């Protein structure tokens, strides 16, 4: 057997005219961690899906454990020791945690009768190994997405794979969960397992990878040992030109008060949250997953009913809207964190996604004025530099960064006073990230106030004019840009206001 556990040679793949992969080759030795990076749409997930048998390649060959692999079913591939943690969560919402972990490989007696005690015992051991406590009988739809991600990881571990692909496993993990993940990876590697790790957070790649492969527009750019790379070089490989990662700033002074919220409470988690927002600024909201940040966004947007408190959009004199439609009318919009589920019509065109909030203004006698719509879409495309094959492309086939831009375009067409961005750069590549940052500052210059929720501390610190830290449904503290450091934010986010003050 050769020294490589996996060799993928000259893989090509196209989808309906889009060349997603062109002549890409990678190879992996046992017991090492391989970083796979590249811009959105570079072809990383496609390459891994070919490895997992979810797609078949148009050309190229795969040699695994010394044997050339031809057609194989997903079940056979899993059995051969390859498992994948997919970028889009791959769990059945209605099924329980334990059933999901062992889906397709349930411990069984004769006649296909489930061995439930075994199923539960083995699931419990796995979760324990991951250091998480979950009710095994709970349908996974009841879990937070971070918990679901951990169930995914447990599922991959349960397959006793020799090669584990992790496609952006960290996008929705933060803090301790992330450390947990890296510890697990460390353990696996010590047992000789090979890991292919995809992430847009380059610091993670530098932390765990032994070797990094860069893809760009479906082609292999470089494969280098991590020691030969620095961040700037890696970014240049990815983007194709040098990129100075400097957060753009505003020049102007703090503007007028635009939004005041007092003592917001909901029956989800919020418990007396107050905030003020000024024209042309970015208010960053930090906190752990589950601290109530997303719930705050939803409450401000009228998506969840308030059980107490008040919200006022100052210059419009609007207050107390009971639905998103009224909030949009008043000039407040939300780009939600789960853009696939809540932010986009993924099976519809870019055109309709962008124009839908203002469709009623683009009609004459109820008939859509196609030209006017085209105009709106063209402007959005130019202003945000959205990369798409045509305005009629379905948004599900855009890369993550471009999807996020479409969500932004959709809301910009309504000309809002306040935009709430929940994790605006999750899953977005470095280049697009800085484009989105620049875009946010352009909006600021037009006087638009932005609330930005983010789990990425560098982004919070780099972009926010003021930072609010949440903990357990309350405001744990507010920091100015100069006071804010990662340590201080983490302290507030984990301890809460009172204890952090004492310590």
């Amino acid at each position, binding site marked *: 057997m050769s020294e490589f556990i996996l060799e993928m040679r000259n893989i090509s793949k196209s989808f309906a005219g889009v060349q997603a992969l062109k002549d890409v080759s990678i190879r992996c030795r046992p017991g090492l961690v391989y970083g796979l990076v590249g811009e959105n749409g570079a072809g990383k997930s496609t390459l891994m899906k070919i490895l997992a048998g979810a797609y078949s390649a148009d050309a190229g060959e795969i040699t695994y454990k010394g044997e050339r692999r031809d057609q194989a079913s997903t079940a056979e591939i899993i059995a051969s020791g390859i498992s994948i943690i*997919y970028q889009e969560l791959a769990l059945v919402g209605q*099924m329980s945690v334990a059933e999901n972990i062992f*889906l397709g490989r349930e411990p*069984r007696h004769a006649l296909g*009768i489930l061995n439930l005690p075994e199923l539960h015992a083995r699931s419990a051991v796995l979760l324990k190994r991951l250091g998480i406590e979950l009710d095994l009988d709970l349908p996974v739809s009841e879990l937070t997405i971070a918990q679901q991600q951990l169930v995914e990881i447990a599922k991959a571990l349960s397959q006793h794979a020799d090669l584990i692909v992790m496609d952006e496993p960290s996008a929705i993990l933060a803090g301790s969960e992330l450390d947990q993940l890296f510890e697990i990876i460390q353990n696996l590697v010590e047992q000789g397992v090979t890991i292919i790790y995809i992430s847009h957070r380059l610091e993670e790649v530098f932390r765990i990878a032994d070797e990094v492969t860069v893809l760009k527009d479906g082609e292999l750019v470089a494969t280098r040992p991590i020691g030969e790379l620095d961040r700037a070089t890696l970014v240049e490989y990815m983007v194709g030109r040098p990129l100075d990662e400097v957060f753009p700033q505003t020049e102007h002074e703090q503007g007028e008060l635009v939004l005041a919220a007092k003592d917001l409470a909901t029956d989800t988690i919020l418990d007396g949250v107050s905030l003020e927002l000024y024209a042309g600024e970015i208010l960053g909201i930090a906190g752990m997953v589950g601290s109530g940040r997303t719930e705050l966004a939803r409450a401000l947007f009228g998506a969840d009913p308030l059980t107490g408190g008040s919200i006022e959009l100052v210059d419009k004199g609007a207050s107390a809207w009971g639905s998103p439609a009224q909030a949009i009318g008043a000039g407040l919009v939300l780009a939600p964190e789960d853009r696939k589920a809540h932010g986009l019509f993924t099976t519809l065109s870019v055109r309709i996604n962008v124009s839908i909030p203002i469709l009623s203004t683009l009609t004459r006698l109820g008939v859509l004025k196609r030209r006017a719509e085209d105009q709106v879409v063209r402007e959005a495309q130019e202003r945000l530099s959205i990369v798409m094959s045509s305005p009629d492309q379905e948004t599900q086939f855009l890369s993550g960064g471009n999807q996020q831009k479409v969500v932004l375009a959709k809301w910009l067409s309504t000309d809002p006073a306040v935009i709430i961005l929940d994790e605006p750069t999750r899953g977005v590549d470095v280049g697009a990230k800085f484009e989105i940052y620049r875009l946010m500052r352009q909006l600021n210059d037009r006087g638009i106030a932005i609330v930005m929720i983010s789990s990425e501390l560098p982004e919070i610190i780099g972009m926010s004019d003021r930072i609010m830290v949440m903990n357990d449904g309350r405001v744990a503290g507010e920091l100015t840009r100069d006071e804010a450091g990662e340590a201080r934010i983490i302290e507030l986010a984990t301890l809460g206001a009172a204890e952090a003050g004492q310590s």
Partner: protein
Amino acid sequence: MNLLASGFFGKRKRSAQSRAVFLRRNGPIIMVYAFILLLVLIGITQSERFFTERNLTNVARQSAFLGLVALGQMLVILTAGIDLSVGSLVKVSILVSAIVMNGESANVLPAIIATLGLGVLVGLIHGFLINELRIAPFIVTLASLVILRGIGLTISSSPVGKASREVMMFYVQKIGPIPIIAWMFFLLIVLTMLLLRFTVFGKYLYAVGGNIEVARLSGVPIKAVRYGVYVLCSLTAAVTGLLWLSRMGVGDPAIGDGIELQTITAVIIGGTSLFGGRASVLGTLGGVLLLGITANLLVMLGVNQFIQGLIQGVIIVAAVALYKQEGD
């Protein structure tokens, strides 16, 4: 065998959260049963014929006729499919079994084999068209509804064939106070519950209906699951055709029309989602009983046939609205 000891049938303790979820999901089913109870009370107080052994036996038998097929339908709907052909298949089944049997005891076994074979065949054809030609279940089974009805009416437009004496006796036989046919339904309920809870196939039905892409990527044999579930559903229809023969004594081509909609109605009232991934056996039983008792009561109270349809429609809307409020 330590299955019992190791909690094979015993329930492990659920956490408070999963109990809450369970209640939230099943709250509406409790409402369905409460409504059934209400109907029974109305029956007892408003009609002296309702709460008699004779009438209750009737209700039980009629519910069993609908219930057998409803269970098959529920399994199909659980996989996010649908089977519109069950009514027509019941019709062809009663005709085929009557003709093959032709009143002879010796022909009973061949008739049963022929009818069940027909069910398996129809289910396999459905599976083939859905799996291999990738036609939507709605279209496949709609076509098969029309074709099978056509075949039925071609075979005969007037009653044909004859049941043997034992088969006719089967309809009225009882074990204890309960008709055998109702026992059969009961047995099938238990088997279906066991299937969904304790077998790999049962879990795969949830997986295919819950998220077919995830099922595929997890190595679930999707095609086999679909073949299996459509065959099971067609089998329940074939068996029901046999039961109808035992009731009618002849192959009556008027039998079977509308069963597909009634079963779908019962399944929906029972809280099974048309989008797949969720099902409840006890809910379906509730749906079947609700429909059966409502129909019976309306007859007892002398309500006009057309209004009966209206009332059924109202029940469906009310049930679905209930699940929208309480479910998630």
